């Protein structure tokens, strides 16, 4: 039996190995991924090298060269790593504060209608306000130093964290609480065995949104007033008319933001094992 099934598999595999053809190559997904990327960088390089759009575009090669130069050359007293850390540091503090206050507050509001009735009116007043709108008042209150930037990021992170924690609990099927009650559980069991675990995925979705808003906020704050950070690098590149500096800064921001988002996704995978196989399908 075993021999036969192995033999069958070999036959199937040889059958599936079709001869090479152009049609099969251009319908291969991975081949198309490659074509797409090569085409993008080629066109970029061509447009930049021939100065088709004027002088304000650097070739991909120049951008990479500039970034490598910046890793050891200091700009305003900091290398590239120093500037990445300056922005990341602000995000870390602002985002953590936003999450540490927003998530518990959202959970409390969803679990207790008196807390909800007290907090919601004021929260609804501030909810639709874009966090960037706070920049000027933040500078008036805290000056142009670190606190004003952290404050903007905090405001930006707070809202999605709170909303998702709140909604994560509100969408739970009431009958799940019935299950706990019928099994002999009390209100605490309902909260710890149903509310919190069921809200966890929504909570992580909120953290992801907060994080991307936090990046927007830190850049905006640094564009307005800063002596360090990735936002400042971009502004610096613009003032010096160095497109390779601007583009390099943008690329680094994308990479670091992508990395932080992956970190949250990794944490979610660790804490929500039941979501793993759904995602990986």
């Amino acid at each position, binding site marked *: 039996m075993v021999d036969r099934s192995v033999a069958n598999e070999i036959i199937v595999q040889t059958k599936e190995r079709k001869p090479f053809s152009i049609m099969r190559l251009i319908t291969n997904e991975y081949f198309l991924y490659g074509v797409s990327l090569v085409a993008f960088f080629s066109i970029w390089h061509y447009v930049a090298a021939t100065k088709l759009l004027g002088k304000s575009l650097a070739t991909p090669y120049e951008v990479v060269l500039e970034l490598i130069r910046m890793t050891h050359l200091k700009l305003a007293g900091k290398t590239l790593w120093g500037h990445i850390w300056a922005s990341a540091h602000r995000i870390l503090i602002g985002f953590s504060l936003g999450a540490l206050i927003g998530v518990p507050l959202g959970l409390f509001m969803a679990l207790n209608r008196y807390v909800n009735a007290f907090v919601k009116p004021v929260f609804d007043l501030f909810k639709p306000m874009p966090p960037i709108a706070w920049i000027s008042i933040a500078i008036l209150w805290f000056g142009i130093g670190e606190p004003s930037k952290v404050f903007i990021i905090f405001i930006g992170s707070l809202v999605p964290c709170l909303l998702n924690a709140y909604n994560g609990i509100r969408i739970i*099927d009431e*009958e*799940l609480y*019935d*299950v*706990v*009650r*019928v*099994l*002999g*559980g009390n209100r605490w*069991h309902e909260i710890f*065995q*149903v509310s919190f*675990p*069921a809200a*966890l995925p929504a909570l992580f979705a909120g953290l992801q949104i907060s994080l991307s808003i936090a990046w927007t906020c830190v850049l905006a704050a640094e564009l307005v007033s800063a002596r360090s950070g990735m936002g400042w690098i971009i502004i610096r590149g613009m003032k010096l008319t160095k497109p390779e500096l601007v583009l390099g800064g943008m690329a680094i921001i994308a990479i670091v933001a992508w990395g932080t988002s992956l970190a949250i996704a990794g944490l979610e995978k660790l804490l*929500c*094992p*039941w979501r793993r*196989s*759904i995602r990986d399908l």
Partner: protein
Amino acid sequence: MAEQSSKPKIICQHISKTFIQKGTQRVHVLEDINLEVRDNEFLVILGPGQCGKSTLLRIIAGLETPSEGEVRLDGAVIKKPGPDRGLVFQTYMLFAWRTVIGNVEMGPKLRGVGKEERRKIAQHYIDLVGLKGFEKHFPHQLSGGMKQRVGIARAFANNPEVMLLDEPYGQLDAQTRIFMEKEIERIWQTDKRTVIFVTNNIDEAIYLGDRIVTLKNKLPGVMDAVYPIDLPRPREHTDMDFLKLRQTITDASELVL
């Protein structure tokens, strides 16, 4: 049946229920239900959709309070849910974030049973419902029939005196349904206790019940008739007596079942 004592396990006395919707609108769901369920009896409550049978079950579970009348379990009035009654839901209601064994051990866990002990209990009921080998699976990885096996095992693992099943097979396809009916009968024979099984399926009712209570077609739900079933188990859907009984019940009720 021989195992049954004549002493009633559950008594429903003049149960009525009116829900108040949107502040003013009143929905009269149950009217004067009087019911006695004997110890270790398999009682089926049969009725069409929207006739209040699920509400009756939720009242017995203690999740709803009756507007009038009372339910007694072993003589004591039921006021709230408790581990002496287990409930199986039509929509399974499994904890998506817990594995099969994590779901089944929930009852003992809430009652403070130690980890080793509750794992042993859970494993016993997982084996009983035929889910051996799926202990570490999450609910979304299981088929509908398997999910309901988890629901049944979870209710049993809490060792309730009364099992309440609310249209447990309503979401299953016909084949799986018949198979699961055989399974619940086997489980009940292995681990006898009082069962109240709510369904809208007449074949399911005759196949499983020691007794069938029918409810009338429309709201408020009122009791229509009671049919004792003395057919030997396991029963055959195509048996002459089975079909005769089916005809009797269908004729007596004004509805097409």
